[in-house]
């Protein structure tokens, strides 16, 4: 594995998504039901297109951020592994006679690997002998010769959640392992296989909320900086009235921010003895001594000068 080599090499980051589950949803009413339950407009999604949408409670709080990929004959719904049971219960509760079938243990797209960085497309082109151009929200099938299964098919999706050039490959676990080996052998590329800790450091320092630390039922999507995954034109969905009112009347109470704190600070943030927010995640000691943290802070305290930390970015 080539790690941190010369800058003449094309650096590409890989991260195997251990903490996500992918279920297949079939049936004529599947997309309509998901559209009625979540924040983004799924109604015009075409086959091979992907969109992020947020499952919210009736109070407009976040259950999870969902990844919805529409294929010809099914939807591949991606969600946090630990939220899957809740999400399935949620869908079941709101299903009344709709034609919908959920396959939890589908095998074709059981695993996903992120490929990101400015050279991700170059790596795909070199590995699969392509001239790939995949705009955000689009996906494509790619075939390659795998060691164990002969000619294998994988699915590449341009997602843009973690990085401008954020692609994910959906396939079986064994094929993804082979792909990591294949990518690592490519000359001219420095493949950085991120473990969970390195990826967590990366996503925190890039202001990216995840379940359950930032995406949970204590906060709404506007507080988490996920407004881009809300359609304000689609009509009703669960939690829509609350979210629209919060946005229209500027009633959002908290904002997710990236803070820098050089010394150890308490999880509960205070200002003049008043509670002003809470730290939700922090980078590891290995990454710049763990000084970067994500925190929800009450909006009215965002412009104050804080002794113990410095606000770097508001997550938008």
């Amino acid at each position, binding site marked *: 594995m080539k790690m941190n080599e010369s800058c003449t090499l094309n650096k590409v980051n890989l991260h195997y998504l251990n903490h996500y589950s992918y279920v297949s949803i079939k049936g004529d009413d599947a997309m309509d039901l998901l559209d*009625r*339950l979540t924040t983004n407009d799924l109604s015009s999604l075409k086959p091979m297109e992907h969109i992020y949408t947020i499952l919210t409670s*009736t109070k407009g709080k976040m259950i999870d951020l969902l990844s919805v990929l529409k294929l010809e004959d099914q939807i591949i719904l991606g969600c946090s592994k630990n939220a899957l049971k809740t999400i399935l219960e949620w869908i079941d*509760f709101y299903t009344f*006679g709709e034609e919908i079938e959920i396959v939890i243990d589908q095998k074709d797209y059981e695993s996903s690997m992120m490929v990101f960085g400015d050279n991700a497309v170059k790596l795909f082109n070199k590995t699969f002998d392509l001239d790939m151009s995949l705009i955000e929200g689009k996906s494509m099938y790619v075939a390659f010769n795998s060691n164990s299964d002969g000619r294998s098919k994988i699915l590449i999706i341009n997602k843009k959640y973690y990085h401008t050039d954020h692609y994910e490959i959906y396939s079986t676990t064994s094929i993804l392992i082979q792909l990591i080996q294949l990518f690592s052998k490519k000359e001219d590329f420095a493949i950085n296989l991120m473990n969970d800790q390195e990826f967590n450091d990366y996503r925190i320092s890039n202001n990216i909320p995840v379940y359950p630390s930032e995406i949970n039922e204590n906060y709404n999507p506007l507080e988490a900086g996920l407004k881009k995954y809300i359609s304000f034109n689609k009509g*009703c*969905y669960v939690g829509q009235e609350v979210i629209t009112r919060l946005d229209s009347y500027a009633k959002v109470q908290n904002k997710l921010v990236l803070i820098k704190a050089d010394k150890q600070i308490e999880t509960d943030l205070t200002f003049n003895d008043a509670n002003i927010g809470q730290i939700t995640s922090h980078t590891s000691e290995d990454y710049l001594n763990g000084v970067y943290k994500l925190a929800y802070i009450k909006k009215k305290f965002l412009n104050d000068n804080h002794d113990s930390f410095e606000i770097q970015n508001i997550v938008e």
Partner: protein
Amino acid sequence: MLDKPSAQRDKSGSLTITITSDAVTHIRQFGKIDGKEKANLRVGVKGGGCSGLTYVLELADKPNENEKVINENGLELYVDKKSYIFLAGTILEYQGGLNGKGFVFNNPNAKTSCGCGTSFSV
């Protein structure tokens, strides 16, 4: 202010769904517009709407398999079993006039409703 109608029960004492005679009259009128001399009604619930559950109303000729049939004021009311859990005790009425809302579900199971009244939560 009008009191919310109390939940209705059938002869066995079970909660049922009631339709006022005025609502039946209007359902019949809508049926005639649709070319149905004796239209019946399917009521139900589906997921969605601001508060989570949305009322469904449609004219129907006959019940689907596994639907409960309720006879009310000469009208047959068809409701699937899962929807019935959320609608038991409901009184369906019709509010006409300039300020009227049309068909209104007075549902004792609804804890909250959205602003437009088309969805509810339990």
